[in-house]
């Protein structure tokens, strides 16, 4: 290996009780695509923030081209030639692309625009410099972030989970860009938890688990099983078995659902149609921002339709478009929203009080007063049955890890014994153990005859658990695709809006 571009020696960082990174050693070679592999919560993002100067390490040393490196701020990192593309972009939505770039890159606007166009052609990153960021798709925003980094001529480019927001076809395009960058002399630190991607593009991989390095390997020489064992200490869990079943009655039907949100940044829905029957799982694939939020609120009842359009949403055979969430729940509907802290649970409240939010009809309220003993009992059962790791029913929701809180919320909704169960991004930011547990519970529920609708960005997840998949893109929902007869590329084509032509 050539003299490393960047070396970390014994880097440690802790937040309160949590040791996010412990004595991490890494060498990044020049002209290398180096993967940092680890599951959610393994400390990957913390490590990248240390390298990019957003945070400073508690101990340890960084060497940049052999010289000790101390970074006080991201600006200092950029001056050395380190650029970063964040998972949640650091773009300003109300500004235009060129304005966003001017904030980081000095120079005349006209010259900058020419350079944006030039980089766009050279690396396959076309984007309109005068567009407002809020009008761009997620993939386009990522391109803006990458261009913004490239304009500072970095030697090292850090990408935090860059593929999690892209359809499969765009992933190939991104990889092509990264390879061209590498050949142009840039090293890339590529953070991911997706094993196949890393095998496809990276020439080195450092594996992190619970804040520690558990291996340095060449990913091309190992198969996914080896990498998974280094990442989570065992093989990747098998998808849960689905017993063949005959779907029962229709539990949810959307008929020509058309809706224009007030929010100028929202996505209007056009003529959305789906049918979900008892004993099946239907997945809605697609990238967030294509109408997912609107569809989810229309199904949950957070957005009500005018009375004359109530037939556009039907649950258990009844028109419910005009009903609110509580009335829909009374019909046997349960819902896990996409944001755990805020809509799924109240962070400052105990789990017992969070149980009350939706499970109050199960005897948790008597004569208008909270029956605390029953609420606590309900919560204890939920914690035990769904393997929620917490100190007990009195623990505050904000004190639980993402995975455990999600298991609690899913468990709470399942204990309502719904006939129709709707989950939005059920395993987003959840560790592999909890994600597997949630998927298994969903399949078990399906086998018992519950109708389940899942909105997810994770295509693999949908292929694991769904009987059928429909793709939401630009506010339009694709026809239903049988999972068994569909490949991820087919889903991808619908995601970029070219489904029918395929």
């Amino acid at each position, binding site marked *: 290996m050539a003299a490393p571009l960047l070396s970390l020696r014994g880097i440690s960082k802790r937040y309160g009780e949590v040791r996010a990174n412990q004595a991490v050693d890494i060498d990044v070679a020049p002209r290398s695509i180096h993967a940092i592999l680890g599951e959610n919560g393994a400390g990957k993002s913390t490590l990248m923030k240390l390298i*990019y*100067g*957003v945070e400073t390490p508690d101990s340890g040393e960084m060497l940049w081209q052999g010289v000790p490196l101390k970074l006080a*701020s*991201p*600006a*200092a*990192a*950029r001056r050395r030639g380190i650029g*970063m593309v*964040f998972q949640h*972009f*650091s*773009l*300003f*939505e*109300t*500004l235009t692309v060129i*304005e966003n770039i*001017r*904030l*980081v890159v000095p120079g005349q606007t006209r010259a900058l625009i020419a350079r944006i166009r030039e980089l766009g052609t050279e690396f396959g990153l076309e984007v309109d410099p005068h567009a407002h960021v809020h009008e761009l798709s997620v993939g386009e925003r990522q391109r803006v972030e990458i261009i913004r980094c490239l304009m500072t001529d970095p030697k090292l480019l850090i990408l935090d989970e860059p593929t999690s927001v892209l359809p499969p076809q765009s992933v190939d395009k991104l990889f092509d860009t990264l390879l061209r960058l590498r050949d142009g002399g840039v090293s890339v630190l590529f953070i991911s938890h997706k094993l196949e991607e890393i095998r496809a593009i990276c020439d080195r991989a450092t594996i992190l688990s619970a804040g520690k390095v558990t291996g340095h390997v060449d990913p091309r020489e190992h198969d996914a099983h080896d990498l998974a064992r280094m990442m989570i200490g065992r093989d990747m869990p098998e998808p849960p078995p689905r017993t063949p079943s005959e779907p029962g009655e229709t539990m949810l039907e959307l008929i020509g659902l058309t809706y224009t949100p*007030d*929010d*100028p*940044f929202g996505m209007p829905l056009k003529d959305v149609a789906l049918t979900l029957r008892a004993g099946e799982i239907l997945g809605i694939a697609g990238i967030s921002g294509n109408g997912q939020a609107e569809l989810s609120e229309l199904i949950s009842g957070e957005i009500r339709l005018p009375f004359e359009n109530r037939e556009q949403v039907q649950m258990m055979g009844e028109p419910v478009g005009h009903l609110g969430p509580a009335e829909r729940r009374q019909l046997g509907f349960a819902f896990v929203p996409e944001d755990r802290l805020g809509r799924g649970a109240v962070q400052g409240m105990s789990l017992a009080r969070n149980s009350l939010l939706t499970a109050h009809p199960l005897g948790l309220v008597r004569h208008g007063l909270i029956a605390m003993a029953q609420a606590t009992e309900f919560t204890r059962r939920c914690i035990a049955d769904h393997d929620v790791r917490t100190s007990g029913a009195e623990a505050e929701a904000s004190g639980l890890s993402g995975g455990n809180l999600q298991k609690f919320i899913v468990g709470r909704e399942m204990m309502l014994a719904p006939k129709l169960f709707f989950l939005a991004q059920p395993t987003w930011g959840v560790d592999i153990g909890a994600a597997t547990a949630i998927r298994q519970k969903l399949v078990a529920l399906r086998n018992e005859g519950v109708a389940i609708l899942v909105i997810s960005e994770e295509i693999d997840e949908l292929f694991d658990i769904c009987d059928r998949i429909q793709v939401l893109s630009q506010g339009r929902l694709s026809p239903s695709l049988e999972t068994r007869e569909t490949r991820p590329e087919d889903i991808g084509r619908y995601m970029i809006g070219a489904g029918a032509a395929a």
Partner: protein
Amino acid sequence: MIAVEFILSGMLAAATPFLLAALGELVGERAGVLNLGVEGLMALGAAVAFIIVYHGGGHALAFAGAGLAGALLSLLFAFAALGLQANQVAAGLAIGILGQGLSALFGKTYESLTVKGLPKLSVPGLADLPVVGGLFVQDPVVWLSLAATPAIWATFAFTKTGLLLRAVGENPKAAHSIGYPVIAIRVAAVAFGGLMSGFAGAYAATVYTPLWADGMIAGRGWIALALVVFGTWLTLRIFWGACLFGAVSLAGLAAQAGGVELPSQLLASMPYLVTIVVLGVISSNRRLLKLNGVASLGEPFKP
């Protein structure tokens, strides 16, 4: 016709205290800081300016002193709200009360005293026009604040400074992650707001009504705050809002002089009502609010 002339000639001067304070507050709010202490900052500026003019220091020195006093007091707010991440609403109210207290304390021995205002400068030619001629005869501070309005608009629209202020206000986390000193930028914006509030107070006490009376700011700071919100954080709307307020308050005076039989309390409350209703209707457009609103307004940021 006389009433129209009266309103046109006095409108800009009546609007100036609001305009100066609101432009300053606009800069702070665009950067994401809500400073509710404008009323107190104006009161302090008014007292400092009046004392300087009374002792023969002249208006230039008076405005400088008032601006400095406003900026210093707003830095105290910045220390609490930005340095210590105190609640911005509470810190702003506290600073406002402190400013009013200081103003009363300094002004105690000057009660009911008067000073000389500023001479008016007229635009040659235009000032002689019938009816609208009065618009072109104004004191120098009015002319300067008329120049400040497009200057601030252009700063937001065309300069890197304006871009940075908007960026810090929309998404302080992102601004920090790309390496900008969010707190320092916000402190500077708040200090600018204090400076402008000090000027606004100085104008009210030494030019518009050059007479000292405790509590002479009389809620103008609150109206300036309302103008920023109802003007949907747009410089030109804030300007028109301030003009509207000035015009309606003069219309009330004209009506009284013309013998209109309405309770004086109602006439006195007209400018507040009219401004709030008009700007309220304009700002009820959700799309506009979403596009121009400041996403992180009032939220503490910890780097």
